[in-house]
């Protein structure tokens, strides 16, 4: 990630008047919080590489990068909501292979609208949006596994 990319993100954050913005992609993690004036850019360790001799203390720090406040599947920021996986399984962005995704970044969504499907034990579980707004981020690609609590989408509340 270069400085320009970071500037662009910061501009977007200002433009959209976001209180909080978080993005993770290819081991890079960006977290921006406006209220607390907290700007964080960390190079996250690749998920699959354990660090057997890192300290117990640093273990806590190296905990899953998605470490997030617990249960409610929707995290109400000042103006941003993050939709999290309520179950473990495989995520599908569209109803059938090859068909159009349920939503994409920029889609305007309504409460109750299906955002994606998580397959668990051969069952297709539709994940619905719990608020009205605009999709500003989609964290998980089609066909990828998700864990409980993983971030799926960010929605700018309208």
């Amino acid at each position, binding site marked *: 990630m270069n400085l320009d990319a970071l500037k662009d993100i910061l501009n977007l954050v200002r433009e959209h008047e976001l209180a909080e913005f978080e993005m993770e992609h290819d081991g890079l993690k960006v977290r921006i919080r406006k209220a607390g004036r907290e700007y964080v850019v960390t190079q996250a360790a690749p998920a*699959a590489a*354990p660090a*057997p001799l890192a300290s*117990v*203390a640093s*273990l*806590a720090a190296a*905990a*899953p990068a998605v*470490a997030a406040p*617990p*249960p409610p599947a929707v995290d109400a920021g000042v103006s941003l909501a993050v939709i999290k996986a309520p*179950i*473990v*399984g*495989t995520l599908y962005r569209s109803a059938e292979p090859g068909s159009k995704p349920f939503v994409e970044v920029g889609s305007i969504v309504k409460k109750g609208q299906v955002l994606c499907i998580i397959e*668990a*034990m051969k*069952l297709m579980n539709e994940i619905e949006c719990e608020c009205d707004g605009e999709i500003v981020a989609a964290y998980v690609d089609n066909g990828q*596994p*998700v*864990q*409980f*609590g*993983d971030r799926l989408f960010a929605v700018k509340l309208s």
Partner: protein
Amino acid sequence: MFNKILIANRGEIALRIICACREMGIKTVAVYSQADEHSLHVRFADEDVCIGPARSADSYLSVPAIISAAEITGADAIHPGYGFLSESAYFAEVCEACHIKFIGPDPNVIRLLGDKARARRAMKKAGVPILPGSDGPVSGEEEAIKVAKELGYPLIIKAVAGGGGRGMRIVRNAEELPKNVKTAMREAEAAFGLGDVYLERYVEAPRHIEIQVMGDHHGNVVHLGERECSVQRRHQKLIEEAPSAALTDKQRKKLGATVVEAARAVQYSNAGTFEFLLDATGSFYFLEVNTRLQVEHPVTEFVTGIDIVKEQIRVAAGQRLSVRQGDIEFRGHALECRVNAEDPVTFTPSPGLITAYSVPGGPGVRVDSFVHSDCTVSPYYDSLIAKIITYGRDRNEAIARMKRTLEMTVIEGIKTSIPLHLKILNDPDFVAARVNTSFMERFMPDKTAGKGKLAESA
């Protein structure tokens, strides 16, 4: 052999299973609730999956979450540990349906032995000594009165689906019977969704003796000797040992052979424990079968040199048992103290931050634990934080080692049961191996409270 095993558990037993898998070169998947994300089992597994929030029902007890975790990680087997789903025939069936090997007995065996009345009948048929009682559930008051006349008093009413003292009532005379049958049925209905109860002769102050068995899918079954677990409080074992000082070699052989026959009769495979009561006259009575790994398996590992978890994995993968009965030698004596995060006097749980943790080494000491300095003991799960196991050439040496180990153990920030363990280890009756399931009562803050549910109707 399996490529990847998912461990459907947490705490010390999850780490114990990771150790076995690493020794066998098998990859591991840890599952964890949000409360456990910084746990060592998550750190030392090759992969990990968050399966739900802190509440067990939504994480460690959630069959869909665990099966999904196995599917997204490509695990080809699941080790359930103890507790949680380890004795769920339903979970074992789902695993089977999903082509994931459940490391434990076949679902139908779990189901048979999980039903106390059916298990009793099967054991009786296989020649295992059982307590005189109704051969199956009683339909109600009238049948109970009829059966009780034959049995005599005291007797005990037990829920068919029972566990943990719920649905249990001790009855000392005919007058108390009708009321207690009703209460027990109501309690059983409330606790297990099944009101069926049966009657059995009640043994006063018995010893708790259990036999460890291992079976493979080729018809081989061996026993790994007995454990004595009489030091318990409300059915929670506190100190276990192997061998039992109460058994002669002849009794050990005879009981072992009986259990092996019975296990074979029900086509038992994998690890299991047959629990017995031993009364004052030296008679054994079948209690139940635990169709899983036991918390106290390390004492058996110490005296036999056999790694029970590795053996479980081997036989689940279709291999033969690595030992025959004739190869199994018992050597020395082992004790286990379950160190719980709880007040040693009042038994109230004591979760929180462990600020200092150190356990001494030296010969004959094994410590199975998941805690460390600066680690938080979660309030969501059971209070076991460490199993301290000591081995000696004889019982006295094992006790002396346990005492010095506990005395030199440092656990700060939370309260633990160690002071209680030390009291027990210094008790002259314990030292002389004069124990039974009522032994712990003398350490209770309030004796009537200490007797628990069983005492209420006594």
